[in-house]
């Protein structure tokens, strides 16, 4: 019984949240839904860890859905890269789910909570599905599941503009999904298969033609929208800033990261960045990344809303990951994964602290938050430490990321790329210190309706845990870098 269940872990990763989501709606009770959410999040993290335990010694797990062997049936394929991303997003999910039990800044009326948590679980089911599946069309289906749920989640923000933000994301997300679908269709046209491994082999064998190039262009744009690559990023700042606090936490650590994972998979697995198709994908990605690294922090510097400022910082940080992907080397992939994980935990901590601050002070306007650090110490110090991580000071995970990224850049022979990376960290230092100056030193410009309610367990506990992770991984980088190296080896080994 147990052993047969263990064999089905890859599909359970997706099916469990999917089923529980349906049960939540049926149960309709807020208490039951909350309990279900937390338990499911725990189960999902455990499944990821168990999968890691299986993959680490055995190598790749190939799971044939419904017993149809690949490439005819749908294949779920778990390797080191997959479990790396699974653990990251399910860890974030658990922390965000606990945080969601606190003061959430949402507009949910009575009875709507169960539906909210159901949407949450659907979103996670979709994201997990995108990670585990090895079938191109399946990726699209899961992408749609997660996206639709995300629009609902964002629309639950208390500010009425949340609906508008959600709508904009919906339009952009729909465009992105369409492009991805087009891309998959073109690939299918060219190769007659949807299994990614199979696709990669056939593209490799037949070489590229116009169809494949078009597919590549559509794919880069579709995924670029979903992961907020620089010129396609515009939906993100508003979506993050008006979503309920816990949803911002969830999205910052999962949605864009999964899109980046898919980008990594497709670009490396199918096309190979090493000019295998004589297509300058690397140049395009690197150019977008540089513009993101330089422009987004400058906008963050002028931002008046605390949450949106950190959303812009997310755009900047995502650019680092895209840069690393664009390098196209094993070290680049490893750097991308390291930053993917590190940025997830840092941003989750930052957005939790921001959420606590907003819930207490009732405002996200930066200039209204003068000197609140003296009354809200915990949140502000977490924010400060997270900010140091974003800058990349030694002792923070951000430093580890910068280290591996600059190493990868130099190893690739593009050492001049270190200059925009440095300029980017400088700009992030500027916006973080602007916040620090206001939170600690500026007098408040209006009297705030502050509520001095003590921190609830569900607020401080996940934050403390994530902060602990941030501290731990800042000082003990070898676990993440080592694993990212293994994951990168799995990917680059696959591709060739």
């Amino acid at each position, binding site marked *: 019984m147990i052993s047969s269940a263990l064999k089905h872990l890859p599909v359970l990763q997706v099916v469990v949240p999917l089923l529980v989501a349906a049960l939540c709606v049926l149960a309709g009770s807020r208490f039951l839904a909350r309990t279900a959410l937390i338990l499911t999040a725990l189960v999902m993290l455990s499944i990821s860890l168990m999968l890691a335990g299986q993959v680490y010694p055995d190598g790749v797990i190939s799971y044939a859905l419904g017993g149809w062997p690949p490439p005819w049936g749908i294949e779920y394929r778990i390797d080191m890269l997959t479990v790396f991303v699974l653990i990251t997003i399910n860890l974030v999910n658990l922390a965000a789910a606990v945080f969601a039990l606190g003061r959430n800044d949402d507009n949910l009326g009575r009875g709507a909570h169960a539906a909210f948590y159901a949407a949450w679980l659907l979103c996670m089911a979709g994201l997990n599905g995108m990670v585990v599946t090895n079938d191109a069309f399946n990726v699209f289906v899961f992408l749609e599941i997660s996206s639709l749920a995300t629009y609902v989640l964002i629309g639950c923000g208390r500010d009425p*503009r949340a609906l*508008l933000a959600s*709508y*904009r994301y919906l*339009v*952009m997300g729909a*465009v992105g999904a369409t*492009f991805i679908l087009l891309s998959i269709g073109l690939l299918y046209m060219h190769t007659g298969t949807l299994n990614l491994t199979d696709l990669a082999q056939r593209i490799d064998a037949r070489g590229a*033609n*116009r169809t494949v*190039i*078009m597919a*590549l*262009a*559509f794919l*880069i*744009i579709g995924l*670029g*929208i979903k992961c907020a690559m620089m*010129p*396609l990023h*515009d*939906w993100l700042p*508003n979506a993050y800033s008006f979503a309920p606090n816990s949803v911002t936490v969830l999205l910052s650590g999962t949605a864009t990261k999964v899109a980046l994972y898919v980008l990594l998979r497709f670009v490396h697995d199918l096309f190979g960045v090493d000019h295998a198709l*004589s*297509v*300058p994908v690397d*140049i*395009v990605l690197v150019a977008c990344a540089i513009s993101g690294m330089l422009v987004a922090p*400058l906008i963050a510097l*002028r931002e008046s809303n605390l949450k949106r400022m950190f959303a812009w910082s997310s755009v900047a940080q995502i650019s680092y990951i895209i840069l690393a992907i664009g390098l196209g080397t094993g070290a680049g992939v490893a750097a991308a994964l390291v930053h993917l994980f590190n940025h997830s935990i840092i941003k989750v901590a930052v957005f939790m602290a921001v959420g606590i601050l907003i819930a207490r002070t009732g405002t996200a306007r930066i200039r209204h938050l003068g000197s609140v650090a003296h009354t809200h110490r915990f949140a502000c110090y977490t924010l400060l430490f997270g900010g140091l991580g974003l*800058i*990349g*000071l*030694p002792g923070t995970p951000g430093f580890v990321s*910068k*280290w591996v990224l*600059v*190493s990868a850049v*130099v*190893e690739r022979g593009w*050492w001049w790329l*270190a200059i925009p990376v*440095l300029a980017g*960290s*400088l700009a992030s*230092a*500027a916006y973080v*210190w*602007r916040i*620090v*100056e206001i939170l*600690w*030193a*500026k007098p408040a410009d209006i009297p705030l309706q502050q509520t001095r309610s003590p921190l609830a367990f569900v607020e401080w506990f996940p934050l403390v845990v994530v902060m602990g992770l941030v501290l731990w991984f800042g000082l003990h980088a070898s676990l993440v870098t080592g694993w990212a190296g293994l994951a990168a080896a799995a990917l680059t080994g696959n591709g060739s």
Partner: protein
Amino acid sequence: MINAPFLILYAGALAALLTPASLRRHVLLAVPVAGLVNLLSISPDAVWQIGLFGLDLVPFTMDRLSFIFGVLFHVAAIIGIIFSWHVTDRPQQVAALLYPGSALGVVYAGDLLTMFVFWECLALASVPFITARGTSRAVRAAIRYLVFQVLSGVLLLTGALVLFYETGGIDVGPMDLDHPGAVFILAAFGIKAAFPMLHNWLTDAYPEATPSGAVFLSAFTTKVAVYALARTFAGLDLLIYVGAIMACFPIFYAVIENDLRRVLGYSMINQIGFMVCGVGIGTELAINGAVAHAFNDVIFKGLLMMTMGAVLFRTGEIRGSELGGLFRTMPGTAGLCLVGAASISAFPLFSGFVSKSMVMSALLAEHHELVWLAMLFASAGVFHHAGIKIPYFAFFAHDSGKRPAEAPRHMLVAMSLAAGLCVFIGSYPWLLYGHLPFAVDYMPFDVPHVVEQVQLLFFSALAFVWLQLAGLYPPELKSTNLDAEWFYRKAWPAFYGLLYGTAVTLGSRVRSVVTGTVALMIPFLRRQSYDLLMPWHVRGMVLITMVFLAGLLAVLYLHRGF
């Protein structure tokens, strides 16, 4: 390797963090004393190596160059801690050990990675000295300071990485600028050493520090950089000219500056100019001179900073226009300030004399006559602004009517210690100079040197007196002078504001043109009120996506020609 100097100070900092306020200052003082004893007992060939990330890291290694800097930093820490005996706020007190500890970490680092870690610690640990002032002006200056320091750190890290991938080694040793990595590293050192145009963090932040904080700040950061330059770029010709510019340009700013601690900041850049120049010459005599001058500068610049700190502490005022006549009630401080002034101006028998003449002689020996002339001008200027202006405007000049009490006893003790060292080193130079990196056979007290220096001082003083009497001396204005920092405090924000504004206007104009055109073509859209939700509307985003797709396809097409 439990007795590495930085470990002792870091452990002391931890202890200071945990001890109650009443006991803390005693812990503070005991730690560097113990550290100094420990340093003197370490055998010179001790090395501490650890392996990490497949690299051989060397957190501790010592030679004659790093030994003398280690002694210097311990002494500076002791004097600074005595001077700040009245300080009771924990961040500053902990920083009083963390900051010297990090400086020691840099000095004894055998590889660039270790050096980088301490380099960043040095930056972070020094910030409390500025922020503790509590004014928003100080906090802002601290932020600008930190941005510069962090930039220096990341440059060093990048340089180390580039160098590592080029050469496979990250030892701290002589480098040449053929490697791009070395260029990054030179830039990193240059920021910390306050090279011209990179110097503004110093004149910006040091005057905003607390009275005792400025004493610490003036001792470590820049001298660490001088050490690093001497270790890696000795003999780089470029540094001779950089040093000459550093020695000369601050003089003009120092003369018109009103904040007396900022005057000292400029004078610090001027003194570092001598050291950088010495490093650039690179001969044994020149390196000796640079190192000796760094040693002396820490003591006499510290002394001057302390006297100005005492004035600020007692009067709450540091602007030359508001001070004057303080010698009546602060005679001790005034006298000690004169000792510091004599030392920095290189009076014979005071500490600056020997070390400065070593650099000057080395310049002549290597036939850099023009630079030598520039340095001569700089020496005269030092006497002018640091030797005369500081004591004159603070303690003499017109009577400001202020009658503050004499400096507290602990400050007098600290200042007397420094003053004693100035005179002692000035009178018995060979006791210090026996420990310089190279064996010295240099005769400082011969007739030409003494006569030349006395003449220089005499005519410089004469110029000051004449300018004062003729009423030509720039009046002390209550103003803030901006030099190169104008670029980032005025020009860049204005430019950035303009850029941002233009981008926003341009964006909305493009959008309205495009939507207008589209609306003309599609009558249905005309009915919509698209201006209402301008920053929110979706069309712009979709348009960007389309343009991006077109661009991407064009790039791919052109590249492949399919």
